[in-house]
């Protein structure tokens, strides 16, 4: 029995047993998930689900996806032993899963390549997307450019200000960036606007959602395109350490990089999972984006999940220094993992993230995205409490080049 288990792990099998395959047929993860969207786009969700399930079982689709991930994205990304960070913290051994080394500098492209291949399969002629930090927007614009498809990206005006570099990159890539001036002018509002576009354009347009959020089948599809992160980690850590890690740590906004890392390990009880949310400036309403640690179950952007909202179900304002985590919702599967106790969720403040951003740059020569800096900040607090024989794998979800201006401003530098 033990031998069989080990063998299956050595082969890099995901280890998800038939029983726990979620979502169910109706798109629910326990009491979370579902499809809460206007009737106009319900048929498109059905079409997408059907197309995805067909593609998933089609070897030629998978071969094509593998080809682009390998030749264009540059996968597999490395699992790098962060020696100086480990020594400094003097606790658990820390490995960084280097998603920042992917083409476009973040994990987002794993999903956009997959979804654009799906869009082509469905005969859709136009792509839309929402973006917060701009990483998903850039990854979508990149895939659209490479396949020669029209692309429009919705982005909140506040995020356009914070992420000017990514806005320029998207334009260079031939995408149209549509500024969103409603509401808080951030990721939530960009998502609303993309959904409204889709309401009108659904017959010829595919909406590439960038995280494991939204109505079914999106949380499932985005997860499946991101599990490559965890599958590679499993193989790499077994090669390096001959065993599975004790802790997986990743940041959670919508939750795509963390879900990609966690999911292939769900059945491995010895592997602990920690998702790190944006604690912003503090616990007061409007000062943070810690959906799982301080939200309640509700409905946002087409699914049921933990959300930050008031007693009338109105979405509350959120804040994070990181545009990619500045979101009042979270993927339904994370809510499920929290409820069943499989993953733990914690929160890190803006200041802690900015410190970790600098620490990682100085100790490892890697400038992490502010999103990933939240995961590093938690690791900095947590690793010293663990013995040296423990292993942490941290998902370094993206590069911090895009954040240089924002951090410089925060630290009082003029660029």
């Amino acid at each position, binding site marked *: 029995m033990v031998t069989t288990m080990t063998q299956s792990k050595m082969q890099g099998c995901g280890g998800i047993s038939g029983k726990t395959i979620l979502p169910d047929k109706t798109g629910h993860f326990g009491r979370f998930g579902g499809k809460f969207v206007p*009737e106009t786009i319900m*048929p498109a969700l059905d079409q997408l689900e059907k197309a995805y399930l067909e593609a998933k079982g089609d070897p030629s689709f998978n071969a094509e996806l593998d080809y682009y991930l390998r030749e264009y994205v540059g996968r597999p990304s490395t699992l790098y032993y962060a020696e100086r960070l480990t020594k400094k913290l003097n606790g658990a051994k820390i490995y960084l899963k280097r998603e920042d080394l992917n083409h476009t500098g973040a994990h987002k492209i794993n999903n956009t390549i997959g979804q654009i291949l799906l869009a082509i399969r469905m005969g859709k002629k136009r792509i839309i997307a929402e973006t917060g930090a701009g990483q998903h927007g850039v990854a979508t614009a990149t895939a659209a450019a490479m396949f020669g498809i029209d692309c429009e990206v919705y982005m909140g005006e506040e995020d356009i200000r914070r992420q000017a570099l990514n806005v320029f990159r998207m334009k260079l890539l031939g995408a149209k960036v549509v500024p969103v001036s409603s509401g808080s002018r951030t990721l939530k509002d960009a998502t609303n606007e993309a959904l409204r576009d889709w309401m009108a354009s659904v017959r010829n347009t595919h909406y590439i959602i960038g995280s494991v959020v939204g109505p079914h089948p999106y949380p499932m599809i985005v997860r499946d395109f991101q599990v490559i992160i965890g599958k590679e980690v499993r193989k790499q850590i077994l090669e390096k350490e001959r065993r599975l890690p004790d802790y997986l740590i990743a940041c959670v906004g919508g939750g795509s990089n963390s879900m990609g890392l966690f999911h292939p390990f769900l059945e491995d009880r010895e592997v602990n999972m920690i998702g790190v949310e944006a604690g912003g400036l503090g616990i007061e309403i409007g000062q943070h984006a810690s959906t799982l640690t301080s939200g309640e179950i509700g409905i946002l952007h087409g699914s049921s999940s933990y959300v930050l909202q008031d007693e009338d*179900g109105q979405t509350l304002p959120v804040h994070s220094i990181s545009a990619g985590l500045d979101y009042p919702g979270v993927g339904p599967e994370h809510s499920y993992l929290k409820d069943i106790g499989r993953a733990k969720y914690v929160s890190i403040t803006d200041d802690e993230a900015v410190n970790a951003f600098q620490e990682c740059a100085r100790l490892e020569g890697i400038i992490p995205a502010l999103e990933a800096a939240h995961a590093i900040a938690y690791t900095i607090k947590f690793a010293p409490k663990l013995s040296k024989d423990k292993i942490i794998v941290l998902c370094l979800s993206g590069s911090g080049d895009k954040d240089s201006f924002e951090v410089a401003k925060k630290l009082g530098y003029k660029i």
Partner: protein
Amino acid sequence: MNRIDRKFQELKIEKKPAFIPFITAGDPELRTTRELILEFEKRGADIIELGIPFSDPIADGPIIQASYYRALMRGSKVAHVFDMVTEVRKKSEIPIVSMVSYSTVFKKGYQNFIESSLKAGLDGLTIPDLPVEENHELFEIAKKNDFKIVCFVAPTTSDHRMAMIAQQAQGFLYYISVVGITGVRDKLPDDIVQNIKKLKQMTKIPVAVGFGVSTSDHAKMISTVADGVIVGSAIMREIEKYEKEPTEKLIKCVGDFVGQLISGTKG
């Protein structure tokens, strides 16, 4: 009998279509909303669709979004909307169906929300982000209380889905005239007539048409095939126009506009 059912029975005898104006609760303020409902009734409106403001309405265009935003900024809470409906009920028996986000209904709890709605004097709900697949529990509670959950059909809806929705429908069916969000439009699509005819073969429930219906000509065209005409954004645009004017002027001007739409609808 539910006021919506009674109204459609009366209209059937009169052989007239229903005119259903949409109005955001609390824009510019709830007192004005109450007066506007009474004014619309006086002008000949048959049913009121009362929008409960929501922070993130994905089916709504810029005009209704902005009206929701203004109402929320002035502190309009769901409890206040119910209070306003209670006030209307002291003077009027016009059927009122509330358009509300599923987020709000879910947060308040099905039982609680329907009980509060009934107590205030509402006759039904339209929940644009709640498709038939997800509404069973809410439906059961509503049915027990003769409270109507109005379902939507869109131009993108397949025949198979249409039949499924038609079977569940209560009160009336809301046919979304355009592929898109709410808003003012110059022209309505050509497939409306064909789709409504198809829908009417599947169910005896009245069919009302909304989204994009902006002028009395549109209303006239729709009233030849459908049982009801819903106008939202065009009315909210008028309200926005007179928002800074004295309330009496606002009520008169918006009332005049609704009056024109009613003449278009009823011929």
